[in-house]
């Protein structure tokens, strides 16, 4: 450690193997969290190389550097404001043209770049040969061919980055030359914004103004409103000259440049036989076979997650309960011991046995689906159905997983592209009856009222989910959703990357969720021990007894249900003093109780997840609105069922 520091940012399109390179570089020295205030993941790590402490930041996978998506905005700001010493631009050798479109924009930011020409092996299998030395010459930046999954070229990549940093290697990115008419106006506009005080190069600001970039417009408006007006009039001139809107023109010309470069450096030899991946793609997106395969793979995913989860859950529970005698010995049986045990340790057990065992297999399965490319095929097949509730196809995954446990389901909402879609998906996901709620539905209504009623409750839930999804879609401001999604070639997920992604996200989850689970468990136990809970129960009677028509005891059970939903049922049996609940509750009461527990609040682990993903405010809004929803639905169904002649 001699204090020499180097900051490297990894940037590039999605599905190019960026995270594999990141994992290869940083190994176990990573930290995964969110960008401040955003639901966008931030992965950072460190390594030591040639006497340097190298900080690596993995920027989100994006296709452009405009600002209509949070990811793009974050990446752009990071490169321009934080000024990493070197940006490693990872590009997919088999989709060179589209990747270069992004590279050209990076070059416009005038940042030192090294290009990792990744997956050269896959490209050559597809019949694409790339002359990387020529590419190097045309772009004016070092290009290193890599095969990230095998670690090929990674060392060289770092070497080049250090050489650039030390000034031994020149990385003077060439600038894209647009057409003459465009170029003229860019220069004029660049002159006008030269001292606007923005962190970006003047030429870049000029180009983005002409491209109609809203964020840049707003920023320039503050210091140089006349430049925005100039951009508008220059843009109109170009529109008259070319017949296309100015943003279209600039984007087209940049793509033309990318196309030109790609054609210069690549040689195409179309393969004779369609590859295995190609065949797999055709089957998995087939209008009949595709759905069958999807159903089979999602079912096995579901069972994998919950079978593995159940095993772990049991092991952890019995392991942790094994500490009880030890606890009693140390603290002595009594009030204090009970409070610590039931308040703190049981909270910990709840967290460890309810959430944790399911999260591990879930993350593994999710990354496997995502990295292999299958997730995008599922989204393709399910898009039209999910679209009816304002979400696109990818939302199907969290929704299905919600039937197991809402926690991983909410975490899975990350796969949605925009903040808005993530929020809608998470909201509807928390309304899906998870395994714990299934215990109540089947254990109460299914057992004592009839299985057909239990099934009707499931159907009812689905209807509510569907309707609320639609409503949320209408209410929440933002852009309409539309699917624009790359379907990358199938590939075998890189096991080490999947494992480390799972591990570091698990750490993040424990850091945020466990304190919350423990604190709330402790609070409820404390309230119970001090008798305050009884007071609460009587305060709740207007709601529980008068509005919902339930026994007063249900007040307590519903409060406990916040910790773990199935506790609501277990406690109900204890409190009513009847193992046979049909003697203590009428069928209507059972149904109403089940409806309320189905909707009233995500459990504390889910709330913790919502907090982690969306922040306190949104988590609170979701929680409160679901309590209101449950009460409305419960009260209404009580009255309707009575009117319908049930007792």
């Amino acid at each position, binding site marked *: 450690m001699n204090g020499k520091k180097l900051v490297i940012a990894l940037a590039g399109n999605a599905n190019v193997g960026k995270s594999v390179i990141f994992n290869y570089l940083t190994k176990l020295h990573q930290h995964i969290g969110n960008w401040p205030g955003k639901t966008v993941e931030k992965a950072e790590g460190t390594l030591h190389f040639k006497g340097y402490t190298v900080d690596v930041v993995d920027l989100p996978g994006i*296709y*452009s550097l*405009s600002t*209509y*998506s949070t990811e793009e905005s974050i990446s752009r700001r990071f490169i321009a404001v934080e000024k990493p010493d070197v940006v490693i631009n990872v590009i997919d050798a*088999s*989709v*060179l*043209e*589209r990747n270069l*479109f992004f590279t050209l924009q990076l070059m416009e930011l005038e940042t030192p770049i090294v290009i990792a020409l990744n997956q050269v092996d896959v490209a050559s299998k597809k019949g694409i040969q790339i002359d990387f030395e020529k590419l190097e010459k045309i772009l004016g930046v070092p290009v290193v061919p890599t095969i990230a999954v095998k670690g090929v070229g990674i060392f060289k990549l770092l070497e080049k980055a250090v050489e650039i940093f030390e000034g031994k290697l020149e990385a003077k990115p060439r600038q894209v030359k647009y057409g003459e008419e465009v170029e003229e106006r860019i220069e004029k506009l660049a002159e006008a914004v030269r001292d606007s005080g923005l962190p970006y190069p003047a030429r870049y600001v000029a180009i983005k103004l002409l*491209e*109609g970039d809203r964020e840049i417009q707003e920023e320039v408006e503050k210091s140089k409103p006349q430049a925005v007006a100039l951009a508008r009039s220059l843009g109109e001139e170009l529109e008259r000259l070319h017949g*296309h809107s100015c*943003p*279209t023109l600039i*984007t*087209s010309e940049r*793509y033309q440049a990318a*196309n030109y470069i790609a054609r210069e450096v690549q040689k195409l030899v179309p393969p004779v036989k369609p590859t295995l991946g190609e065949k797999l*793609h055709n089957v998995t*997106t087939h*209008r009949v076979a595709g759905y069958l395969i999807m159903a089979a793979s999602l079912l096995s995913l579901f069972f994998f997650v919950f079978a593995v989860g159940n095993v772990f859950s049991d092991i952890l529970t019995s392991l942790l309960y094994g500490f009880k005698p030890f606890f009693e010995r140390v603290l002595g049986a009594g009030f204090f011991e009970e409070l610590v045990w039931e308040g703190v340790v049981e909270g910990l057990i709840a967290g460890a046995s309810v959430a944790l065992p399911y999260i591990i297999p879930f993350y593994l399965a999710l990354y496997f689906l995502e990295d292999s490319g299958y997730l*995008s095929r599922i*989204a*393709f*097949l399910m*898009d*039209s*159905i999910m*679209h009816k509730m304002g979400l*696109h*196809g990818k939302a199907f995954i969290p929704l299905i997983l919600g039937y197991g446990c809402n926690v991983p389901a909410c975490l899975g909402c990350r796969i949605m592209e925009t903040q808005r879609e993530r929020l809608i998906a998470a909201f509807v996901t928390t309304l899906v009856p998870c395994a714990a709620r299934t215990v109540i539905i089947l254990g109460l209504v299914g057992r004592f009222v009839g299985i057909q009623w239990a099934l009707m409750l499931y159907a009812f839930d689905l209807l509510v989910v569907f309707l609320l999804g639609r409503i949320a879609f209408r209410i929440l401001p933002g*852009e*309409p959703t*539309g*699917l*624009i*999604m*790359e*379907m*990358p*070639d199938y590939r075998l997920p890189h096991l080490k990357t999947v494992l480390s992604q799972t591990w570091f996200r698990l750490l993040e989850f424990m850091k945020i969720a466990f304190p919350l689970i423990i604190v709330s468990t402790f609070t409820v136990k404390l309230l119970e021990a001090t008798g305050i809970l009884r007071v609460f129960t009587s305060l709740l009677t207007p709601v529980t007894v008068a509005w919902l028509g339930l026994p007063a005891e249900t007040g307590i059970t519903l409060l406990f249900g916040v910790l773990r939903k199935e506790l609501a049922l277990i406690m109900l049996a204890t409190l009513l003093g009847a193992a046979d609940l049909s003697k203590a509750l009428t069928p209507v009461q059972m149904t109403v109780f089940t409806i309320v527990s189905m909707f009233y609040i995500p459990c504390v682990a889910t709330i913790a997840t919502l907090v982690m993903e969306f922040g306190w405010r949104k988590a609170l809004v979701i929680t409160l609105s679901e309590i209101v929803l449950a009460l409305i639905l419960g009260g209404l169904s009580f009255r309707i069922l009575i009117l319908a002649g049930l007792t």
Partner: protein
Amino acid sequence: MSSTADTGVSEVPLAMLRDGETGIVVSVKSGYGKAWGLKKRLMDMGITPGTRITVVKSAPFHGPMEILVRGYRLAIGRGMAERIFVRMEETRAGCAEK
């Protein structure tokens, strides 16, 4: 939109193309104010005027379309596909591209 069927050249929404058909992008309509971002996004993904697009297949139930553009596979929603206007190309079987 404007279709001049008699000359053999017609400008139609991409959504009208059948599986296996190819068209050259003429324009992308942005629709109302907020959809501006979607238009930009389509273009950033490579769907700019003059680009050749081949429809591979459509998902059932009026689902998204799988298209080939600039050498990669892209799925776009039906609504998007209705905004992209293409000129149909007379493609003869066996006619090599490029």
